[in-house]
């Protein structure tokens, strides 16, 4: 999100928060969120793809709502109205091509109305058929999860993205030599897909379903039925569309259902959060970005001292950038009565790696823990012959590799994940070893160890960023050597 989009989001959130209540607020938020899916989507070189990609996001949201809702749920007044609002916004965006010489809601001119109406009709037919099938074959839910994961893998893999771009270019008679992995930038899909998988997984109804666990969820009422406006607003909520956090549906819906009136105090708190976020992102992070470690600096920097400075700059840049966006999202959401979860809790002040991961991109970590780590652990424990340390190593390594791959399917992200997986394992082993042998009662020594732990953890994380920041393993290893003065 750029400054214009953030400014518009703040203003509309203020208006919605101050002047709408109850149902009206929900529908306004739905309309704004669907609109934002189109408006925030960056331009892509393939014709009208900056319209079709957001349309696919909306299609997936509606499809998954249908297949996870009770039979006939769509016939209620608010769900029909929700469908009308969604379809109306898609048509409205398409209509702008007829009224404005330059695109105003999309990056490039949207396609002709007839194509959009045809798309809506086809998706309606598909959704109806697929919903019908999903009532009979539970496997369809797994199929949708697999499809979402497949799209995610393609988008995150430069090679697969490039191949797909070549495919689309061939299909549309466009030159393939200029194809790029960036041709298919799908704004917010990482977050949209994780929210949808969370719902699909928690809504899966039968014990036969491979990822089941939902019986308990339903019994405890963790995931109540959501109307289409609530569901869609949750998945594509405009403040958290592009950079999270990944909220839980039941918590989000709880806020949406509450009676909310924007008070002066709420406005002040939200405003403070937004200002802090803007300062973090657009002053600190953007300034640090100029000197943060990158591929060019990896080969240009002449001394180890300066290499450390560029690495520190990267470590703080990525923190201020991401946490700044989170602050802005939390602040804007607060203006409309939604209290989004925190994503950061002073990660660089933590004395060990486990605590770092409990305070860095917390909603992603929680998601991975719920939907991967716990399942993986359960599975690996079924191999009773394996020694405990192997299970621990495998669990931590696999989890961190998944987090790495979520950022991108490249060797460097795998190395970054492995770095943290091994780090967590070693820290766990050391912790057990130290607890059994040392009993430190001296408070001063405890403080020194605490400070030492913070410094050590920060530097471990910072060195991990060498893999994250650079595109090639060779560059990363070169920087590692330079950092330690190895010629």
């Amino acid at each position, binding site marked *: 999100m750029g400054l214009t989009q953030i400014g518009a989001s703040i203003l509309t959130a203020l208006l919605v928060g101050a002047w709408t*209540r109850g149902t009206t607020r*929900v529908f306004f938020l739905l309309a704004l969120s669907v609109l934002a899916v189109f408006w925030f989507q960056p331009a892509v070189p393939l014709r009208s793809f900056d319209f079709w990609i957001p349309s696919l996001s909306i299609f997936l949201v509606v499809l998954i709502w249908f297949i996870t809702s009770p039979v006939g749920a769509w016939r*209620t007044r608010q769900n029909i109205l929700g469908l009308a609002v969604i379809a109306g916004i898609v048509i409205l965006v398409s209509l702008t091509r007829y009224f404005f010489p330059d695109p105003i809601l999309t990056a490039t001119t949207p396609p002709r109305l007839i194509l959009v109406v045809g798309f809506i009709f086809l998706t309606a037919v598909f959704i109806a058929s697929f919903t019908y099938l999903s009532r009979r074959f539970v496997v369809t839910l797994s199929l949708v999860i697999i499809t979402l994961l497949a799209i995610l893998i393609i988008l995150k893999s430069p090679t697969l993205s490039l191949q797909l771009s070549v495919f689309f270019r061939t299909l549309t008679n466009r030159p393939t030599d200029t194809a790029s992995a960036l041709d298919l930038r799908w704004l917010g899909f990482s977050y949209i897909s994780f929210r949808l998988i969370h719902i699909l997984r928690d809504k899966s109804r039968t014990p036969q379903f491979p990822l089941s666990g939902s019986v308990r969820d339903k019994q405890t009422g963790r995931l109540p039925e*959501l109307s289409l406006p609530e569901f869609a607003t949750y998945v594509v909520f405009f403040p958290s569309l592009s950079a999270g956090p990944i909220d839980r549906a039941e918590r989000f819906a709880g806020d949406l259902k509450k*009676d909310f009136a924007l008070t*002066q105090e709420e406005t002040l708190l939200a405003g403070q959060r937004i200002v802090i976020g803007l300062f973090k992102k657009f002053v600190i992070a953007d300034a640090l970005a100029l000197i943060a470690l990158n591929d060019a*600096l990896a080969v*240009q*920097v002449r001394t180890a001292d300066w290499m450390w400075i560029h690495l520190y700059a990267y470590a703080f840049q990525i923190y201020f950038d991401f946490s700044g966006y989170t602050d802005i999202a939390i602040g804007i959401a607060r203006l409309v009565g939604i209290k989004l979860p925190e994503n950061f809790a002073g990660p660089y002040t933590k004395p060990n790696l486990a605590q770092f991961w409990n305070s860095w991109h917390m909603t992603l970590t929680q998601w991975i823990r719920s939907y991967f780590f716990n399942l993986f652990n359960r599975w690996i424990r079924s191999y009773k012959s394996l020694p405990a340390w192997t299970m621990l190593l495998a669990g931590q390594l696999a989890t961190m590799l998944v987090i790495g791959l979520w950022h991108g399917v490249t060797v460097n992200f795998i190395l970054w994940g492995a770095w943290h997986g091994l780090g967590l394992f070693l820290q766990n082993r050391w912790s057990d070893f130290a607890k059994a042998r040392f009993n430190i009662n001296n408070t001063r020594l405890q403080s020194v160890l605490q400070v030492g732990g913070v410094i050590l953890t920060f530097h471990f994380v910072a060195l991990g960023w060498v893999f994250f920041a650079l595109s090639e393993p060779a560059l990363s290893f070169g920087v590692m050597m330079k950092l330690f003065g190895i010629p």
Partner: protein
Amino acid sequence: MDDRQLTMVYRPSSIVTQPNMMNPQPSLRLLPLLLKATLLFVLFNFAFTFISGLSLGKFSLYHSVFPGRERFPFGESQKGYNLSLFNLDAMFASHVLVGTPKETNEYRVFLIGDSSVWGTLLTPEQTLAGQLNSQNISACGKTVHAYNLGYPYISLLQEVMILDEALQYEPDMVVWLTTLESFPRDKQLAAPLVANSPERVKQLITNYQLPLDPNDPSLNHATLWDQTFVNQRKDLANLIRLQIYGALWASTGIDQFYPEDYERAQTDFEADYEFHGIKPNETLQGKLSIEILDAGMNAAGVPTILVNEPILVSDGVNSDIRYNFFYPRWAFDEFRALLDEHTSSRGYHYVGLWDLVPMTEFTNSGVHLTPFGESMLAEKVGEAIQSFCK
């Protein structure tokens, strides 16, 4: 229960009413909030006009946190860790000259000129200043230390403006490399650095009695609106960016983007005889800013050498008509004659090196040299410095 205490609450399958929890907080009154915010914003902007007149460019991290740059910041290139800003204070504050105390055995030479002196496509060591310093030459019993005060864009007035500011840093000699393209009257106020420094231009006009209009529309006189924070934000951001690039300059020694491939200077030309609209049957007399040249030559009060800098002499198509992209032969030949006559009549130290460098040693322009071309020039300029020193 009062009806007003009933609030509409949205539920997935129905709209239900639910008693409102008593909320002690007053609701937000949006319009007064927006009005106050707008008023504060306007007041802040106009309060800012009071500090925008201050020389903010003099505050710099160079020389304290980062080493000074070997040449002025120029070129909008993030890859080259460089930017152009039209703030002479900030440009000097980042230059190595400002943070280098003059040593007793230093013979301080200022090199003034355009992009050829600044060193387009050359690393700092490959520029004229860099090559002169690597020669370790002596003049008047002292070690010559050359400072690169060149700046791209071609205008004599810009060069005099830089020289005028640099004089406070105690030069022992000034070497002014220039070419015909800097002389036309219409070019003097057009250089962005000049156009954005109307107060300095006014001072130069007064101090050197230049026949220029201080109210010329080419000069960007800042209005009150121009000085508000909203309008100054880009300049402020540039000042901050210049400081941040100091870290990159310190860590990499790079201050320019050096492309692996670039378009070579043109050597084949159309049969075009005109120079700035002047035809061969006319004369350059009266159309060149000779008085600005005089101002610069007399400004320093120390030996000042005027160099007619090397230009590309082409042997391509229509090279009998034109030397290069800039000059038809007749115009440059007349310029040389004028310069010879003027410098000898005024007793200036003058060195004509226009044809020193072969065509193959030019890069992307008729005045930009390769490192080898630059070394040829450095040798001659070094000899001139030694012979003219006092």
